[in-house]
């Protein structure tokens, strides 16, 4: 092999390139394959997680900017720090995220600049028709301020009590005999044992002849009488779903009645109206007090009439009144006369999803023009007296009313089971409060001027295939007060069961 000069041929020399080249070629070939396998596994979430990050530096194929224009400005760059951010000047604003698979939960981490806004909430649009949003707290300055100096007590299940003066040693003691001073709540429904010494049972009950769509919660009051209430319901079958109806009655958190009315058997969107059925709630021998009646169902279910032996009955937080020409084809007999409501609350959101529902709503002395469909119109009380009950007139109905408060269909039916309590809103003044009850909230971390907050949102209740998700950032009163809010970074970590576990469950269990 050796040449006559004693030199090895080129191919036989040490570090022979002939051996190096295939290795180098293999590496060059394998690098893109490895990267693409990684991208594939990540995109299709083989491990069960998908991380989507957006820093507003450019466009992302999976995440949109905040919109609509006007409420959210164009992306901007701070030339001194090179940070890119998007300013929010109105609310609510939305952000779309497209994911290749449906997930169970998402952990959202947001970095933002918020010098003035007292309440920030972030959540998901869970349904578009009708419009429904689930919000979670990002920042609540009333609680943050109280946390600095007030006495703090917490239960095992995460209910926190803040007291200006430490009068109670536990949350249980507080709930057993709540104070007379103003109590604020947040992410928590305060079930104070309400008692009305002036109440007495009366003969002849009430009948509510308005069509209410979807789930509703009611509160009634009884004393030495049988709790009796009847709901006439029909199924519109407008959506592809199972329209079970569950009616449960609670005293505080204790259930006293539970009934399930199964679907009419039509799960397709046939728009065939089911026959009318009646759910009868009849519970004798209950002690005096306020009772909450929760009707859990889908938006295909319409309550056509409510009859009750009680004469106090209020609707809690959410009311969807139909009684509009829009539904004439489905309900030829529908009464489209105006609806008068009694309402207690300091903030009310009104929305219609149909052009026939455009109208001017009268709330006390104020008017709220509903001029666009699919967009929430907000009314805020100018009154500082918590006990004021406003009269609302809905000229043509077909409105979704959302509030932290109670609605009644007649003034003599109205009562406020949450007397002396207020759900914290952007107008809540900490000086007015003596104690705060809340849960599901931790203060954001703030470094210099940037706050960072993380929330876990469940995607279970989101309608559709859960691949096109719309997130909501709510900053109540931002536009009115001309406050500034800027978001500079947002990260979504979507989670579902890993592929291996799902395959194992499918084939081996």
């Amino acid at each position, binding site marked *: 092999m050796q040449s006559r000069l004693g030199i090895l041929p080129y191919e036989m020399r040490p570090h022979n390139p002939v051996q190096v*080249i295939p290795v*180098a070629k293999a590496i060059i070939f394998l690098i*893109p394959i490895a990267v*693409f396998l990684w*991208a594939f596994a990540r*995109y299709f979430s083989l491990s069960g997680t998908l991380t*989507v990050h957006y820093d507003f530096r450019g466009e992302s194929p*999976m995440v949109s900017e905040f919109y609509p224009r006007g409420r959210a400005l164009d992306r901007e760059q701070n030339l001194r720090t090179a940070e890119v951010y998007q300013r929010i000047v109105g609310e609510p604003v939305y952000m779309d995220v497209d994911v*290749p698979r449906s997930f169970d939960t998402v952990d959202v981490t947001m970095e933002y600049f918020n010098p003035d806004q007292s309440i920030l909430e972030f959540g998901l649009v869970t349904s578009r028709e009708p419009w429904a949003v689930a919000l979670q707290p990002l920042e609540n300055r009333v609680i943050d301020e109280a946390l600095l100096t007030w006495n703090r007590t917490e239960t095992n299940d995460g209910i926190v009590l803040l007291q200006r003066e430490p009068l109670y040693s536990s949350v249980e003691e507080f709930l057993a005999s709540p104070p007379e001073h103003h109590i604020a709540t947040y992410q928590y429904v305060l079930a104070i044992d309400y008692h009305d010494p002036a109440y007495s049972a009366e003969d002849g009950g009430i009948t509510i002849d308005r069509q209410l769509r979807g789930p509703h919660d009611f509160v009634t009051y009884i004393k030495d009488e049988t709790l009796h209430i009847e709901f006439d319901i029909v199924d519109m079958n407008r959506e592809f779903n199972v329209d079970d109806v569950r009616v449960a009655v609670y005293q505080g958190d204790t259930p006293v009645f539970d009934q399930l009315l199964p679907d009419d058997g039509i799960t397709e969107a046939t728009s065939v109206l089911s026959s009318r059925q009646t759910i009868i709630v009849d519970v004798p021998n209950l002690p005096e007090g306020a009772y909450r009646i929760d009707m859990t169902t889908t938006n295909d279910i319409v309550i056509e009439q409510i009859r009750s032996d009680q004469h106090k009955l209020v609707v809690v937080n959410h009311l969807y009144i139909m009684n509009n020409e829009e539904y004439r084809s489905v309900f030829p007999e529908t009464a489209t006369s105006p609806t008068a409501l009694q309402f207690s609350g300091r903030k009310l959101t009104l929305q219609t999803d149909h052009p026939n529902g455009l109208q001017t709503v009268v709330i006390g002395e104020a008017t709220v023009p509903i001029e666009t469909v699919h967009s929430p119109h907000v009314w805020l009380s100018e009154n500082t007296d918590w006990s004021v009950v406003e009269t609302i007139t809905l000229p043509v109905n077909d409105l979704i009313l959302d509030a932290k408060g109670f609605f009644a269909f007649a003034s003599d039916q109205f009562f406020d089971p949450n007397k002396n309590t207020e759900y914290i809103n952007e107008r809540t003044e900490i000086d007015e409060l003596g104690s705060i009850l809340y849960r599901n909230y931790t203060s954001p971390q703030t470094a210099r001027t940037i706050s960072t907050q993380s929330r876990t949102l469940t995607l279970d209740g989101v309608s559709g295939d859960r691949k096109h998700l719309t997130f909501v950032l709510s900053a109540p009163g931002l536009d009115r007060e001309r406050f500034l809010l800027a978001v500079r970074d947002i990260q979504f970590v979507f989670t579902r069961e890993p592929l291996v576990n799902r395959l194992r469950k499918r084939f081996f269990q």
Partner: protein
Amino acid sequence: MLRHLTSILVPTAFRIFLVWYLIALLLELLFPGMVSAVIRLDFFLWTVILLAVFSFFIHRTRA
């Protein structure tokens, strides 16, 4: 030796990266965000362009 390796590997890398760049574009079209969430496609394109330029000069030097 380095010159010899470069003259072989750069054109090889160009061909491989060009094919994968086209695959990446196709995948990005079909599954938006799949590739761009992992690598920056504009950097990928510049890599392919630089490899093409080097390959061209290597080819001319050989000729």
